[in-house]
């Protein structure tokens, strides 16, 4: 009996466009796929796959190189293989963990960062391609004690539950408001449609962005503002 490969193989040869329109073929998986003989993917059986030599391995390890990433205004040097994504370089090597890894293939927006001022999915950009460009992450917008207006509205509206999608939504919404300070509801909905939230905070985060784009209300009383809280872990 033969079992033909399905999603398993597809993942490794999947080529996607960076949603920011950069159009780079920027997938670690893509490189791996090439190494594993992706051209023949359609006829490989999973069994064959398991036996394939890890062709990229030798070459890739040899290709480790040091690059400089400019993250939130700081120059950080990091050693990566060419197949390492910007997201993994930041999270697993530089401890910049605001951007989250959720789908790792440009579908959920949890890893959204600014690259030269434009929002991109950091899981769809190779670290080596990001070298020399200005990278800005959610950590750079506001601190828990000094939130941006948008972040404050997220908090006030309870636009986060588990919060795992939140850095991505905050970044995507920040991008929208930088581009269009007074977006329509439809524009907000569409600008955030590249992000997913499994806890279902959509109604509240749409409201938070809407309110954040309008003139400030009178300030909240200090007692009811979580900004005044004791420092939580």
């Amino acid at each position: 009996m033969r079992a033909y490969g399905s999603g398993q193989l597809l993942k490794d040869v999947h080529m996607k466009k960076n949603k920011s329109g950069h159009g780079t073929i920027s997938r670690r998986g893509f490189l791996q796929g090439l190494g594993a003989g992706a051209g023949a993917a359609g006829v490989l059986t999973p069994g064959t796959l398991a036996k394939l030599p890890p062709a990229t391995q030798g070459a890739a390890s040899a290709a480790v190189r040091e690059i400089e990433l400019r993250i939130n205004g700081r120059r950080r040097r990091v050693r990566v293989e060419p197949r390492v994504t910007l997201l993994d370089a930041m999270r697993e090597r530089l401890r910049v963990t605001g951007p989250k890894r959720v789908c790792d293939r440009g579908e959920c927006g949890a890893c959204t960062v600014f690259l030269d001022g434009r929002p991109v999915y950091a899981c769809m950009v190779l670290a080596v391609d990001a070298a020399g460009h200005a990278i800005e992450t959610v950590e750079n917008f506001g601190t828990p004690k000094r939130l941006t207006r948008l972040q404050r509205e997220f908090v006030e509206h309870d636009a986060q539950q588990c919060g795992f999608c939140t850095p991505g939504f905050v970044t995507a919404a920040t991008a929208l408001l930088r581009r269009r300070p007074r977006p329509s509801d439809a524009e907000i909905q569409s600008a955030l449609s590249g992000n997913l939230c499994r806890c279902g905070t959509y109604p509240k985060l749409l409201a938070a962005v809407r309110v954040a784009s309008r003139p400030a209300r009178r300030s909240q009383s200090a007692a009811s503002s979580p900004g005044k809280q004791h420092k939580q872990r």
Partner: protein
Amino acid sequence: MAKTNVRATGGIILPPERRTATGELQQVAWENRIVDTAAVEVPVPAGEPPIWDVETRPQVIGKALPRLDGPIKVSGRADYTYDQLPPGTLYGKIVRSPYPHARIVRLDLERAQAMPGVHAIIRLDEADLQHSSAAAAAAEPGTAVAAHKQNGGASGKRNPLFVGDEIAAVAAETEEQAEDAARAIEVEYEPLPFVADLETARQPTAPRVHAGRNNVRKLPAPRGSNGDRGDIHAGLAAADVRIEGEYRTQVALHNALETHGVVARWETSNQLTVWAATQGIFGVRGDLATFFHLPPHRVRVITNYLGGGFGAKFGAGMPGIVAAWLAREAKAPVKLMYDRKEENLASGNRPSSHQRVRLGAKKDGSLTAIEIISYGTPGTGHGAGVGGMARRAYNCANVRQQEHDVATNLGPAAAFRAPGYPQGAFALEQALDELAERLQMDPLELRLKNYREHPFKALRRQYEIGAERIGWSRRQHWQRGEGAVRRGLGMASACWPTFGGPPATARVTVQPDGTVTLTVGSQDIGGGTRMIAAQVAAEEFGLTPYQVRVELGDTRWELYGPASGGSVTITSIAPVIRAAAWQAQQKLLAALAPGLNVPPEQLKLAGGKLHGAGEPIPFARACARLRQGTISAQADRAANYERNLTDMFGAQFAEVEVDTETGRIRVVKIVAVHDCGRAMNRLLAESQVNGGLIMGLSYALYEERVVDRPTGHVMNPTLDFYKLAGTREIPEIETVILDAIDPRSNNVDAKGLGEPPIVPTAAAIANAAAHALGVRLRELPMTPDRVLNALAALNS
């Protein structure tokens, strides 16, 4: 425990706003909100704080206050398990079976061991992983592979049973190296017969999934007033009208955004620390202690923040055991986070269902019989029942529900938000609507006709409010529309039966600088446990929740808290937090009274100040007078005051538009009316309801795990092929929370809210779609092709 009977009044507190005749929302005075009151004798155990009833108006509890960890989350600083990276961390990767059923002929680790960066490799194909625990515990670190080699080829190997089943695991210095090494592990499989769909698996000739066991297993049926009862044949015979229908629901995938995973670090050879993406830190601790033969206190489990669980994250599971085992072998911390595909192959799912429903009713609508026969596949796991809606939700003397698990060679199911209930509601609530049509009755009237009375149940009020806010009366003169787009209105009820209770422990301390610290052994899975815990403590001290320090998500304090599942977290811990906070507050006042020359009873904490001794003293200044340093009190959760409490109920109403040319269903509006006893925080409660119904909507219209039957492969284990509702799919949502105060429950009148809101959504949308189309959609998800097929069947 000694109990005192206390007389208390229960009742319903309506929402703070009501619609006027012109449709405007208007604030309502507190007194006018309290309805349906009744006095009861409540047996209160000794040591409990003063009872709250429907007249009690807490200052902090029940308010709509933003959660205190919001600022940390929106600034990207909340540290989830996925974000942990202790120095020297290695990355774990699991090798998974590409076959749905196979025998492992050869497993060769040699080449992988020689790969750069590789520090440890373990085999996971033991007959029973628990047996490996002895080896893992006894062996010197670094020798496991050798030990396994010796046993290699011996009988007792575990055959992989689904695509994605665990075969072996590696730890290497980078994730990329771990992936390379995992690929270099040579596995030769002999494929074995398998079955990857429910219908085939039910055939007597189908390959058996579990050796020596039938694929079909009948689930035990509870009896009694919430179980099977009466005589189904007599009930059907006595009916004036009988209807029968078949319904199918899909396998759905949890897809919490943070995947399953653990970061494990051995502090010494018998002291383990793990950060776990879990809904229950103590369950993880217990599993790891057992596996590694350690006393529980030698394992510390930390979950600061969790990126969603939805029922699939209990216990150490494979990620926990594998990460800790690899870390032991490698003598270094190991981080093992599932990727999205692993998550969707091997970490759980909501089982499918195929249900046959029969209802019998008198002409006036009163039900004489409810029968459900269901089959569902939990893959290699269990738990494909369709829940208790049929047995618990309505008044009916004759109920029979026969449920069956059907094993298939697919990843095991796990609890998924209200296990069984959305499936059950999809069938039962549609069958009720069909019955209403036959009887030419309003669907809501039919439900009221079969209303099940319970003390302090708010469902009747929930129906009223929901009907008013969706404009249910429009249904009498409903215009479906003439063109391609048809409109419909539908509704469905929710019911959910579980409550929190003991054991749970909490501790509250007050420092002379005024810091109030609350420590509780639970975790915040995203629902807002941290905030509600702070509110309950703040209430007793007259503070704001933002002035309370909350410690949770760590086993090291040895304060047990329940796993967050079944909607039991708040019901379990809020009462014990109140008890501990109240005791600490009493101690504080007793300690301060002598210095102020007043009796302690005269002192009162409110608005951040101490009152009763001349000029009010700010809280921190009052605490500075503490002579003996820290005040502290620890309490254990008392049992619920009464055993048999009223289930949680709720109702949802949906308005939809269906395009009969494209088959697309657009949900225009959903009104959701729920209660959770006394709502602890109205803002968080709303979020919880929104989250449940949006997940329900996604389940109703988009989500479906697709399996390629000839190969047993899941075709859409990643988010580019598994559709979840996003911002564009969200209808207008009106969420209404009322309070159903049942003083017999616990000292804060709390009930759960995590599960009920997902229960009725798909059913309400389906009923609205049937109303729009004049034909019923009996299969989930209700995709355009199914809509078009139903219309074609209607027209032919």
